[in-house]
């Protein structure tokens, strides 16, 4: 099970990184959001994997999964959500303003002058 989780995590990360490196804003943002979910699962896995013992204190069981990483993941999920929404909107506005959804705000065809750079 652990192995599978690790592999899945790796696969998702790889896809996230690949998308992150695309030239258009939308895939880039998808990559970012995928990357943050990968990070979340990673955090979660740092508390080791235990099935069937949720950390909800009750009289019957004394066995609980590690609650701390879960709390961290919750925080991370929320922040990740906020960031994704923000950069998505940013991408939309950039497209609106520059007419291109290229991550550099201009179609590669348009030959650049040094003034656009830096």
């Amino acid at each position, binding site marked *: 099970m652990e192995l599978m989780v690790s592999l899945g995590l790796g696969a998702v990360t790889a896809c996230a990184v690949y998308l992150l490196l695309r030239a258009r804003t939308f895939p880039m943002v998808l990559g970012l959001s995928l990357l943050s979910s990968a990070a979340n699962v990673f955090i979660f896995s740092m508390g080791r994997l235990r099935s069937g013992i949720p950390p909800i204190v009750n009289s019957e069981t004394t066995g609980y999964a590690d609650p701390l990483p879960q709390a*961290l993941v919750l925080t991370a999920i929320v922040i990740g959500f906020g960031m994704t929404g923000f*950069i998505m909107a*940013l991408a939309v506005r950039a497209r609106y303003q520059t007419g291109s959804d290229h991550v550099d*705000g201009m179609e590669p065809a348009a030959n650049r002058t040094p003034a656009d750079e830096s």
Partner: protein
Amino acid sequence: MNHLLAVPIILPAVMAALLLILHRAPIAAARVVSVGATGCLLGVAFAIFAQAGPSAPLVYALGNWPAPFGIVLVADRLSALMLTLTALLGLVVALYAAQGWDAKGRFFHPLFLFQLMGLNGAFLTGDLFNLFVFFEVLLIASYCLTLQGLGRERLRATLHYAALNIAASSVFLIAVSLLYGVTGTLNMAHLAERIARVPAEDIALVRAAGLLLLGVFGVKAALFPLHFWLPAAYSSAPAPVAALFSIMTKIGIYAIIRLKTLVYGIDAGAVMDLTTPWLLPCALVTLSFATIGAFGADRLAIMAAYLTMASTGTILSTVALGGAAALSAALYYLAHSTVVIAVLFLSADLIGRSRGDMGDALHPGPQIRHAGWLGLAFLFGGATVAGLPPLSGFLGKVLVLQSTQEGSAAAPMWTVVLVTSVLTLIACTRAGSIVLWNVTEPLPGRPAHPLRRGELIAFTILVACSLMLVVFAAPLLRYFDETAADLISPTPYIDAVLGSSRDGVIKPYAGVSGD
């Protein structure tokens, strides 16, 4: 119970929340709140500065949960120093922005206050994950502030800035949780102890986490090759925001210092100095790269942005060489550069504004109003940043060189620092003589913006600070030496945070509540 430590975080947060609720109120009210709050923050910062000095670090257990379980705020000399710098800069920026910049964007003041909250929180927190949260606070605030007023360049710059930093945040999460996974704790002081005792087979993991963190902080500090977002973002940001950002790179530097001296600070042999093979070369490259950038810049703001990076390079290369003297020199340089970079950004703004369409481009342009004063302002900034005596830059450079002349790294260090100083000197004289001397038309056709009083006050405060760094250099240096000494031997800090007895804090976690 000393609540002082919580104020720098809660005060701006609450004020910002109020401003959001009252966002329909006239901006004058927001200005009053903003300036007032920053004023209070400065007072509080001084109070903490005064208290953190003599005694052991101040510790504040949030929610009354003891460390390492709960989140604690810790103020040692370093944190106090950073808080003070932030508050100073905050006040200056609030004053400056209140002269009209803030009206051009939306929600400037709440965002600005949240930004301050994020900075203060990052400087105060003693918990690594909480540090992440505050990084996010100050980042999202800085995105919004950079965006103020929108425009093509800003959008593009912010998109790049945000993309790189959001990606870096994911790495931050991975590194922090990795540390938790291996050591089972998140409190930095506690981490230091755990890492010192890490079993041999876990060393690689712990070091990997540490180096990833170094990278993450390197992004914030604009350390080569993670700096790419900075020049565009800083040079396109509104001037007051850019001025505020001169502390933003310092947060990365602060975190790196903490990482190096606290979290990986106890030399237990197992984990040898984490940063050694990486930090010095990267920092020197950063310094050279940035200086070349400043040298070839075609706008004052871009020059200032690259000089921000250059200061990072200088400070971190000094930090990398370790040793109390070097650390103390680095801290002096940190304080100096924070102030002078702000001076540069503000003067670039004032000059650019009074040159009409030419802006702050380094091309011959119209005669500017108040050429005398603005010239003096730029001369001051340029001379300081280029390290001309008797200004703070000179002292900083002397300290850096003095503290690094032993050892094998001395030769490259000295060469780079001296050569880049010459280049910076030339770059500043070039910029100044083009913008202020090489005048095409007598006066701009359109009425140039007048200098507003608040802007002058803000500017004067900065200049005064820069001068005080020289006049009161002796006591300041004493403070920095003590700070460096604290950092070199973190045990008192750790004891202050964790208390004397630490047995049973960590338990083998078998998924059952131990009792």
